[in-house]
């Protein structure tokens, strides 16, 4: 009975605690993130990516916990730094593309009409572009690229889905009485959008950003896997997996690519799990109880 009066965050918390998988996933995500960011403070990236000819392709040992790769580099260290880089880029891309998507979606949904038409035609155009190829082409075209330019390139082609979602919800919101009431009492459009409409969309935004975060980890590692993500001096999870494109590594040096693959899978599954639990929390019909 008292459920109806719970505040938003209490509902979310309750839903996650009820769903044992989601709780486990959340704990895993927090643990991995904390571990990776803290340990990488102690590791020196340039030290780890330095080629060491005396230690090529060593299997796991007490000195190298996960062995070494074909350049004699410590796989465990690359795994830690790679996870950190992959997570950082996924978080940056998700927030930046989310921000752009939310802004455009909110403006076109709230104003509707011509404004909506204008923005939606742009979205339509971006939707038909073969995103993967164009991102790859851009990555090779940009002369000096690092984390920031990589984030910008990915963001440029990933904001459309969010814009569409927010727009369709904002279109529904603007017809509601509270918006009209606020307008009549003299609130500015900006205030209505940011202070009144946006909070009503927050649950949808959080759910879709969580699911996007998982997808972006996959996308970044996929691009690095193909060789169009970070340069080799900045390892990512995908870089480690990409060594498996060499059949010898794939067949007999599992320690190079299996841990990174498992980590990608665990991260994506856990984030998805939490996202699904959040979705249920946001939609009263789907709550577990």
């Amino acid at each position: 009975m008292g459920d109806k009066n719970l505040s938003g965050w209490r509902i979310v918390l309750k839903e996650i605690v009820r769903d044992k998988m989601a709780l486990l996933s959340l704990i895993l995500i927090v643990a991995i993130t904390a571990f990776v960011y803290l340990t990488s403070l102690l590791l020196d990236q340039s030290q780890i990516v330095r080629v060491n000819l005396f230690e090529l392709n060593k299997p796991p040992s007490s000195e190298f916990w996960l062995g070494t790769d074909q350049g004699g580099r410590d796989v465990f260290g690359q795994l830690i730094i790679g996870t950190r880089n992959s997570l950082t880029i996924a978080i940056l891309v998700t927030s930046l593309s989310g921000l752009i998507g939310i802004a455009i979606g909110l403006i076109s949904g709230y104003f509707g009409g011509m404004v909506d038409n204008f923005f939606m035609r742009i979205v339509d155009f971006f939707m038909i572009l073969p995103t993967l190829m164009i991102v790859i082409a851009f990555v090779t075209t940009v002369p000096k690229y690092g984390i920031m330019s990589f984030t910008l390139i990915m963001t440029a082609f990933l904001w459309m889905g969010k814009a569409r979602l927010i727009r369709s919800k904002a279109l529904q919101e603007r017809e509601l009485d509270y918006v009209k009431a606020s307008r009549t009492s003299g609130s500015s459009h900006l205030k209505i959008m940011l202070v009144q409409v946006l909070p009503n969309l927050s649950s949808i935004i959080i759910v879709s950003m969580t699911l996007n975060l998982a997808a972006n980890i996959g996308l970044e590692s996929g691009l690095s896997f193909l060789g169009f993500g970070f340069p080799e001096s900045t390892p990512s999870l995908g870089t480690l997996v990409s060594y498996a494109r060499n059949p010898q590594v794939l067949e007999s040096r599992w320690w190079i690519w299996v841990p990174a693959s498992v980590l990608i899978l665990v991260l994506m599954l856990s984030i998805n799990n939490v996202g699904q639990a959040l979705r249920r929390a946001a939609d009263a019909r789907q709550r577990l109880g």
Partner: protein
Amino acid sequence: MWKIVARRITIMIPQILLLSIFVFLLAKAMPGDALSGLIDPNIDPKAIAEKRIQLGLNKPWYEQYWDWITSALQGDLGQSFRFKMPVTELVGERMANTFWLSLATLVFTYLIAIPLGIISGRYNDTLADRMITGYTYIGFAAPLFIFALVMLWVFGFHFGWFPTGGSVEPGSTPGTAAYIASKLYHLLLPALSMALITTVTTVQMLRNEIIDTKFKDFIVTARAKGASESRIYNRHVLRNSLLPIAAFFGYELTGLIGGTVFIESIFSYPGMGQLFLSSISLRDFSVVTALVLLYGVASILGSLLSDLILGIVDPRIRIK
């Protein structure tokens, strides 16, 4: 229906036009031009400048665009400096391979999705349903490239059941039965690896549709009339539940575009995606431009197809 087709095609024309301008500008932004690959250091720079004028590279960009698009429409997409052959010829070969790969993947996708979706929807909340739902959950989160690598590792290298690269046994003569068999054999593992991942959205969709449909009034009526369970599911439920699957078909096609790039690269399958990646690494930009354009046109056609199918299966859209 014809009205919709006509209207939908009219929308497509500006889309293709915009796409081609975008691709052209992208190509212009890439370092080097059609000549830098051909240039021999012994040639005198004056001759290069002359050649540039001859090729029209000193004209303003819109004139160059016009030249490029008119020759592209006539099937001339320039020369690949790496293979020293016309891009159209080069891409044609690869396109056929990618087409077969995509077709095989689609066939597997539906062969897997329809039975699993039906079992999962009809017997929901049983053990079988839980197992299928678990599979879709993992398949949804697992990145395609990792799954494909594991498939290659297990079935290609460890058991040796499938070839680990290429699209046909080298040395076999085209047209013979052995050639076709070898082609199919090379397709099997890549197509299956992709289908097992891409199918999960369709399974989930079919399951939800069947669960939604089976509690509708017309099913209750059918049951009251005394129709057998199998008749209810095969005729009444399935027919209605397949509509959204059919509508999703065009998006499935667009989704294949990204997927084939990963699959072709992992299984060293000589298709368009593999050509794209190798051309971009070797800076063979005339090939890159042609491929981006082709992929874009393919995705526009995919969305056209999905709208048309939606119009055919759902009369409500036709009336509007």
